[in-house]
């Protein structure tokens, strides 16, 4: 692991070696967790999580990862718009937190680039737990770990990502990681939810689900966030489900050993049928399990780099 890694802000800046190091650390913890649930790597340390956006899974996952490594975990909830209207800048808030001497800051923010702003002003390591539509690096790492468990390696695999690509940090982080590791990526969704110049990522763009599913080893379904001004981008949930949803008919188009992933939370009946989400091909709960291990790996790796 190179010493230059102080923060985990995104996948785009990571080298293949750095990605491998994070994944290896995650896998090691997953194995070790079979024997014990508690380590002392971060004992005496404090992880502060600052979340400007609601989250159950990611927050809980970071908390569990921190505590299993022996750290204290303090969670702070904030609302981006209210704190802006009160006049306190994100930088002010973070400086106040840093004054309390934590050892790591885990940040989730509805604005893309929020962690990039913070690291200019803070000295402690910052872990991005999702910024706007930009990156969600630990999600991509846990997804990679889940795929590798099934297929051994990412290289040469065909991965299809379906849904609201435009407003998805999960899609962006996964695309960066998968391309770096040699997988082939297709994105699929209605044209209104595919951002301009998508091909520059080195991915294929498909507007029809049947085309996108053909030959895929991995199908990642993204959450459709109807609350995010999507009313003018897709006509209705039911029309979306008809053309882009994963249900028995569309699953039949997939390869026999292909797996289905979803970063959660699921909209059952919008992007994925309940029986498909709970079906044999689904590895959705494996993703959640791996999330804790990968985040332990990230924290431990950054601690090692700092020490």
């Amino acid at each position: 692991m190179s010493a230059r890694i102080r923060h985990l802000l995104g996948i785009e800046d990571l080298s293949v070696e750095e990605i491998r190091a994070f994944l290896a650390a995650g896998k090691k913890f997953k194995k070790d967790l079979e024997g014990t649930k508690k380590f002392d790597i971060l004992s005496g340390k404090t992880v502060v999580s600052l979340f400007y956006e609601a989250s159950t899974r990611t927050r809980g996952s970071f908390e569990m990862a921190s505590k299993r490594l022996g750290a204290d975990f303090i969670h702070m909830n904030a609302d981006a718009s209210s704190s802006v209207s009160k006049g306190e800048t994100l930088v002010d808030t973070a400086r106040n937190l840093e004054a309390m001497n934590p050892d790591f800051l885990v940040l989730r923010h509805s604005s893309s680039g929020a962690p990039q702003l913070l690291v200019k002003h803070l000295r402690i390591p910052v872990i991005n737990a999702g910024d706007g539509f930009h990156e969600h690096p630990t999600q991509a790492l846990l997804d990679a770990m889940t795929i590798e468990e099934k297929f051994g390696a990412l290289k040469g695999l065909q991965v299809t990502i379906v849904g609201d690509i435009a407003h998805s940090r999960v899609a962006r982080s996964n695309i960066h990681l998968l391309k770096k590791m040699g997988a082939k990526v297709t994105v699929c969704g209605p044209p209104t939810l595919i951002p301009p110049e998508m091909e520059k990522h080195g991915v294929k763009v498909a507007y029809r689900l049947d085309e996108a599913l053909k030959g895929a080893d991995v199908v990642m379904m993204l959450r459709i966030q109807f609350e995010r001004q999507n009313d003018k981008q897709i006509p209705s949930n039911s029309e979306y489900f008809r053309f882009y949803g994963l249900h028995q008919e569309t699953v039949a188009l997939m390869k026999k050993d292909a797996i289905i992933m979803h970063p959660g939370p699921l909209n059952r009946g919008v992007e994925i049928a309940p029986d498909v989400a709970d079906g044999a091909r689904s590895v959705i709960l494996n993703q959640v399990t791996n999330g804790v291990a990968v985040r332990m790996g990230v924290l431990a790796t950054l601690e090692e780099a700092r020490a």
Partner: protein
Amino acid sequence: MNSRTAPSSLYVTGAHLVDPSQKWNGPADLLIERGVVAAVDKPGKLKAKAKTVKADTVDGDGLHMAPGFVDLNCRVHEPGAEHIENFESASQAAAAGGFTTILAQPFTEPVHDNAFMTDFILRRAKEHSHVRVVPMGALSHGREGKKLAEIGGMAAAGARAVGDSAAVENSYLMRKALEYARAFQLPIFSFPEDRNLAGQGVMNEGWNSNRLGLRGIPPAAEEIIVARDLVLLRHTRSRLHFQSISTAGSLRAIRLAKEDGLVVTAETNPAYFSLTSDSIATYDANFKCFPPLRSEEDKEALAAALADGTLDCIASAHSPQTRSSKEQTFEYATPGMIALETTLALTLELVRAKKLSPSRMVELLSLNPARILGLEDKVGGLREGCQADFVLFDPKASFVFESERVRSAARNSPFLGRKLQGSVKATYVNGTAVYGARKEKK
């Protein structure tokens, strides 16, 4: 404008005068009496006369001299938010940047939409400004885009342009404004942006917005209003000026309208011919502005349009903001950058790159904006009888644009800490130094 001391006679000698209003581009001496240009002639020719009137000598040796720049797009925030910028600070920044006339945008609180406000602004400016201030009135009441402001009253009180400095969404209101303003020979200033198309966008739509995960504003948001306003102009035969043009598509529409003989003028701002959306890579909110920084192709098209006449002038789009409004994520940060003190150096980049001639540069910064305001008999040129508003600058001298040297009350510039080439040495208004008085040569 506070000209506290009566201007004495001045003899400016040794400078290279660039004044397209009299097709001058070479060495010249100037004699100034009572704040007005009394004579312009070849070097040495005015020496005797200068001695007779006991003129103070201004040494212009090695410097370029131009009529003071006229800025059609400057936010002052007085009255309303004087802590952000006021006439004292804005005019100091203007003077430091070579600007001697600024068109104060109606970014005031209360909004400048009536003659009382025009009076008030002119009075405040007279007391506190170091440069000439020309008020621009709002087009609509409260800048709300619903009902016409008192355009006639503001014109009578001294406003020389009207516009909301924001998109007028209602096409009917825009049409009526264009028609109504004809009676008062005022140009309508249009800030072209379709708010629905721009949506919640914060930067140019394209590869960079995709990669950074930021909502995009497509060029179409600007172009659709440019096209609409040109259609309305064709219909009303009024006078229209576009502010802050940033896309190649807008330029195509303006070029066509000019070929058809419509009375349309347009400006761009240094940000758009100096920077592209590539600069946003680190999410630095100092690069956030509206319209957003565009593509390389747009940037090149703007430079070409400044040269070929599709664009008529360069305005600063000086837009001061507080530190806390910029110390935000890119999405929440307030758009805008201060620009009065960097406009000359950035424009000189185009001259150095041979994209503009020195004369064309002065047309864009001084003569054409003065014409758009109908002030070309007084400012924008240094012919005999013009106001002695001028700038002396060294196009080769470099300086670092450091926080300490900024005269504006704000610091929101993406060029802070950068080395720029082209330094203002002195600025005079009415023959009085408002920035960097030159040493006298006995």
